[in-house]
Structure formats: structure tokens, C-alpha cells
């Protein structure tokens, strides 16, 4: 078979079509952080667990600011500290109590909420952009876009997104960093409510400076580590501690890689396969069709 112009154009057209389709997709696969916007600077929070007294004022403020249903146990009750609590669809921030290895009389209180990662895994996992990283820092949730697949829950290294399993029209719920307040220049409700200054809101780089100042200025009081400075590529909400982070409910095996990087290699191979596979397969097909034709001729000659 000679390669006729028509056949060539057919193959070229098919390959080109795939190239276009694949190229358009790949250009956006590596999600660039939207923090490059010069007008707004990335915000975060510094949580100093050595200052927290477990008063749960942050929980109460969060409950009011987000108009969440009132809990069964009042915010002034200490009974909640008996077990370890996770955030729930109705409680975006929870304070837990841990025994203090250094000073048994003074237990450690650690609040738990969305870490607002610099490059959030949930946002890169979401196939309809219901989770979105805002230039101001918070990772927000667009409820109108969500299809309830819960892949964000699978992907979140901190297990923060929670799902309304008992609703016929369920949403994913998590701390959204009080985005409305932050966009207006106010601080999140929990930071405003903290009576001890254990929760400090501000620009992320200023917070890292502040954390260093505290650690270096008081090396006996602090572990020399800011949890969230490098974990999973950096988080917006960061922690200081007097005791090893492992002992107060933090995972220290998460690595320093941005989570979206875990899939970017695979995703960048997608357009390549989309282009190369059809080209190779069309090639195979022509090659084998030719061979079959020749075989047909040969056997025909023999007869």
C-alpha cells in the first residue's frame, strides 16, 4: 500500500485533533498557586499551644460566625476533653486536651481545624472546583458546585472536610477561614475571640517571623519547629509547641511535598498518552493491514 495523501491527512488530522484537545487540558493541569496576585498577600494563623488554656472561646465564636447548630454540651463544659474530638459537619474547630510530658500539671490544649494549605490537596482533587484556594489565604467551599463525591476527604492529609451523611441533600463542611471577614480586612472569628493571644492572625510570612522570634527568644519553652512551615508544602495555619508534636495529635509523617505534586506527574503524562497512543496504534494498524494484504496476494499467486 502506498501512503495516499488522503490516508496521510486522515492520520495527521486525528493526531492533530488529539494534540489540540490534550494540549488545552495539560496547560492547566499543574495548578499554579493563586497566591502570586500582587495586590493581596497570603494570610495565615499562628497557634501557640503553650498559650492556649482550653477555654473554647474559639469554638463558640466559630459556631456563631458560621451560624452552626448549637451543640448538646455547652461551650463552658470541660467534659468534652475526656475523649479526643474530630471536627464535625457542625463544628469547624475543636479543642483537644493532651497530657504534657514536660509538666504533668499543665495539660496541652490543641485546637484542630482546616490548615488552609498553601497548595491544598482538596482543591486539586476536586473535579468541579467546589474547593477553591483564595488569594487571601482561606480555602473555601462552593456548595453550589459540589457533587458530593467526597474525593476531597480521601485526599486531605489532615482529614478535615466532613460530609453530611445524614442528609438527603448533603454538603461537605469545613472551616473556610472566615473568608467573608478576611476579604473585608477583619480577622477570623476564632482569632478575634481568643482571650490569651494563642491565636494570631496575619500575613503568613510575618507569622513565621513572629514564630521564630518566640522560639529563639525562649528556647526552653518551645520546640524548635513550626508545624506547618514545611509540612505538605506549607500550611496557612501553623503551630508552636512545647512538647513533641507527635504527642499532641499531629502527624509528622506527611512529608514536605505539595500534595498536588503527587498527581502532577501522572496528569502530565495524560496528554502524552492521548497523543502518542493513537499515533502508535494507527501505525500498527496500517503496518498490519499492509502485511495482511501482501499475504493475501502471495497466497493468491500460489494458487
Amino acid at each position: 500500500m502506498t501512503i495516499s495523501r488522503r490516508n496521510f491527512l486522515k492520520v495527521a488530522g486525528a493526531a492533530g485533533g488529539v494534540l489540540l484537545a490534550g494540549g488545552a487540558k495539560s496547560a492547566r493541569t499543574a495548578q499554579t498557586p493563586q497566591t502570586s496576585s500582587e495586590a493581596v498577600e497570603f494570610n495565615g494563623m499562628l497557634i501557640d499551644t503553650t498559650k492556649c488554656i482550653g477555654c473554647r472561646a474559639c469554638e463558640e465564636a466559630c459556631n456563631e460566625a458560621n451560624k452552626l447548630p448549637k451543640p448538646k454540651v455547652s461551650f463552658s463544659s470541660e467534659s468534652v476533653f475526656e475523649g479526643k474530638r474530630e471536627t464535625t459537619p457542625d463544628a469547624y474547630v475543636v479543642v483537644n486536651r493532651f497530657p504534657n510530658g514536660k509538666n504533668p500539671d499543665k495539660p496541652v490544649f490543641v485546637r484542630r481545624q482546616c490548615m488552609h494549605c498553601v497548595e491544598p490537596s482538596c482543591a486539586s482533587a476536586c473535579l468541579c472546583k467546589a474547593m477553591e484556594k483564595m488569594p487571601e489565604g482561606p480555602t473555601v467551599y462552593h456548595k453550589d458546585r459540589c457533587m458530593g463525591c467526597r474525593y476531597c476527604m480521601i485526599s486531605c492529609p489532615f482529614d478535615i472536610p466532613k460530609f453530611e451523611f445524614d442528609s438527603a441533600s448533603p454538603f461537605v463542611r469545613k472551616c473556610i477561614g472566615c473568608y467573608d471577614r478576611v476579604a473585608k480586612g477583619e480577622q477570623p472569628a476564632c482569632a478575634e475571640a481568643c482571650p490569651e493571644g494563642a491565636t494570631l492572625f496575619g500575613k503568613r510570612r510575618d507569622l513565621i517571623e513572629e514564630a521564630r522570634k518566640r522560639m529563639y527568644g525562649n528556647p526552653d519553652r518551645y520546640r524548635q519547629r513550626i508545624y506547618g512551615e514545611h509540612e505538605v508544602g506549607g500550611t496557612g495555619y501553623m503551630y508552636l509547641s512545647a512538647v513533641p508534636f507527635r504527642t499532641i495529635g499531629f502527624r509528622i509523617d506527611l512529608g514536605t511535598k505539595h500534595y498536588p505534586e503527587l498527581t502532577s506527574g501522572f496528569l502530565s503524562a495524560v496528554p502524552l498518552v492521548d497523543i502518542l497512543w493513537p499515533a502508535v496504534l494507527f501505525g500498527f494498524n496500517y503496518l498490519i493491514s499492509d502485511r495482511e494484504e501482501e499475504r493475501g496476494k502471495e497466497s493468491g499467486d500460489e494458487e
Partner: protein
Amino acid sequence: MKSNVTPMPIPGMPAAPDTGTLKGFLRFLAQELKPRGKILTPFNVVTGIIILGGIAIIAVRFARGLGAVTNLSQAYPWGIWIGFDVVTGVAFAGGAYILTFAVHILKVKKYEPIVRATVLNGFLAYVFYSGALLLDLGRPWNVVNPIIGNAFGYGSVLFLVAWHFLLYTLVLFVEISPAIADWLKWVKAKRIIQKVTTATIIVGVTLSTLHQAGLGGLFLTAPSKIHPLWYSSNIPVLFFISSMFAGFSMIIIESMFTHRIFSDRLDEAHRASHNKILLGLAKGSASVMAAYLFLKVIDLTHGHQLGLLRTPMGYWYLVEVAGFTLLPLVLYVVAIREQSVRLVQGTAILTAIGVILNRLNISVIAFKWYEAVRYYPSWMEIWVTLAVISMELWVFRWVITRMPILGAPPDFTAEEGTLNNLDNAEVVRWKVSSSWKVSAS
């Protein structure tokens, strides 16, 4: 649609329902939809009860939320509706792409008799498992968002999976449509479809490659949650490769049943070549499994995880990899040497169990293996899964007993010969007309 061409009389054709007109088509459809044979068979009664119960459970699920019928929790957002129905089901549908590749691209004619049944199986698997996915979505009415919405999450593996899932289901429909055209005796439609067969199959193989790999790629984002023996940056490749032997083993298992149950639909040529086909599939399966195990060993040694094998999860890993992948590989090799079709069939079942174990391990069992309270499916989750499978079997049986899937497709060349002898003008009019009315009457 109206046509100015009157249906041409074709000599030598038996009187068939005129599916060329809308009325005739509907009458034909109504006639075909009627059940045939005995209705109250044990199989029908059991699956019928399962389906009815499943529908009731699904109604509760939509009225009161996922929590009412499933054991899903905040710690385990995905259960067997994803881990078994979707992730495992799609692996078993892999036979369609691998077989169409062999027959249409590599031109291995030997497997031609089983292509239609395999493609049908793949198509129904995709339709029913994507259906099962809708049950699991919290807000299924938003499922179109990544397809036609304005919110494209390009950076998501799930976005890729969703698109390839949708497109490949369409491709499978095109691939099975010659059988539908045969059934309706739409000669012209069949000829148009046949022209795009090669291109469709190439697109299908490409989409499948990425779709199968993408299902594994989903779990790349959970390195801290999946047990290190199962987590690997090679998960996409491992899923792709294992979908091949999952597909092979499913074809073998499916043919065991269809040959027993639908033996009257088989033609002689098919029956005669069947043993050769099964042994060939066993060879294909064995070589792919060898490659898969090689990758598994590389993962194990490079990750320095040999020590983990001596933990409870390690023993479980060995059950999957040694007991249900390595052992079937050895058995396949023995079966090929002994030319034993029975051993091939038994091994296919072992292989399939291995694939089920692997998919369930990654998505459910080795997922958050460290949690104090583990997920196990509720009886209602299992019931609905069985109901989905039962529904698929009903549709499969309906199609098999009506369309030329197992036997040779009807020969329309007689008609085509007639067409070629017609006046040129007639042929031109035939070709120009775009109406589906102008099919054989």
C-alpha cells in the same frame, strides 16, 4: 425524517418486521421486550427479589441520605459502592479494550467470535457501574458540573477519570452498535458504523489506558492513608496492567456461563475454536501477570518495605500477591503446557479473586488500616451491589437472546450484491439519502 425513496424490494429476504419506519420499529421493540421462556425460574425469583429489595434500599438512601443505609463515616468516606462497584467493576470491563485491540488492530482473527460478547459485557459494566456511582454521590444532580458546567477542575485526577469514563462508554456503545444494527436489520447504519470501527477502537484503547490508570491515580493523593505495602507512585501503571488480566479472566469466566446457559445461540465454528481461544487468553493473561508481579517486586524492594511483610498487614499482602496473583500465574503456565481448558477456567476464577482483593485493599481494606474503628459494609450496601449485578445480568441475558452476540452476525452480502446490480441512479439515491428509513425492509 422523510425519505423520497421507496423501500426497495430485495429478493430472497424473509419477511421481517419493518424496523425502517417508526411505527414498525416500536412494534418490533414491543415484541422483543416481551419475556421469553419460563418466567418463574429459580434464577429469576432470586435475582428478582434482590432487585426489588435493592430498589427499596435505594429509595431510602435518596430520602434519608447515605448514612441511613451505608456504614460510611467521616473516617471512611468511600466504601464498597466505590471500591467494589466502580473500582473493581471497571477493571473487569477491561476485556473490551484488550480484545478489540487484538482483533481489530493486531488482526488476530482467532478471537473474533468472542469480541461482541466481551464488548457487550464491557458496555453494560460501564453503564451499570456508572449508575452505581450515582447512588454513591451525595449530590448526583450535580454530576454534570465537570462535563458541561463552568467549573472544570483540570488539576484533578477525578476530572480525567470522569471524562474518560463518559467518552469510553460512548465508544463502547459505538462498538456494540453493529449488533444492534444487525438486530434491527439496519444495513446502511451498520455499514456507516463499520467505516469508523478502526478509529473508534483506537480511541477506545487510548481512553481505556488512561481511565484504568486514572482509577489507580485517584489514590496517589492518599500516601499517608494507604498502607505502604500498597501505596506506590506506580499505582496507575499497576492498575492499568492488572486491568488486562482482570479483563482476560473475566472473558474466560463469562464464557463458562454463557456456553452453558446460551449454548443454543452458539454456532459450530465458535464452539470448535473455543478451547483454542481460552488457551490463548490464558497465555496473554500469564504474560501480563508476570510483568505485573515484576513491578510489584520492584516496588517492594525499592520502598525498603520487606520488613513490613512480617506484620499482619504483610501476611494479608502476601495472601493477595502470592496466593491470588503468583499462584494463578503458575497455574496458567501449567494449564497452557497441559492444554487443560478446565484448569484455565479454574485459574481465571482465582485471578479474578486476586483482582477483587487488590482493588478492595487499596480502596477500603488497606485504606486507613490504622483506624481503631474500621469500616465494613452494611448488609444494605452489599444488597444494593448484588441488585446492580442482577440488573446487569438481566439486561445481558435479554441482549444475548435477541441480538447476534454469541453466534455469527447475519450475512447481509446477499442484499449488497443486489444493490450493486441496481441501476446506478438507484445506488446514488441510496447513498445520498441520509434517512434511516432506507434500510432493508
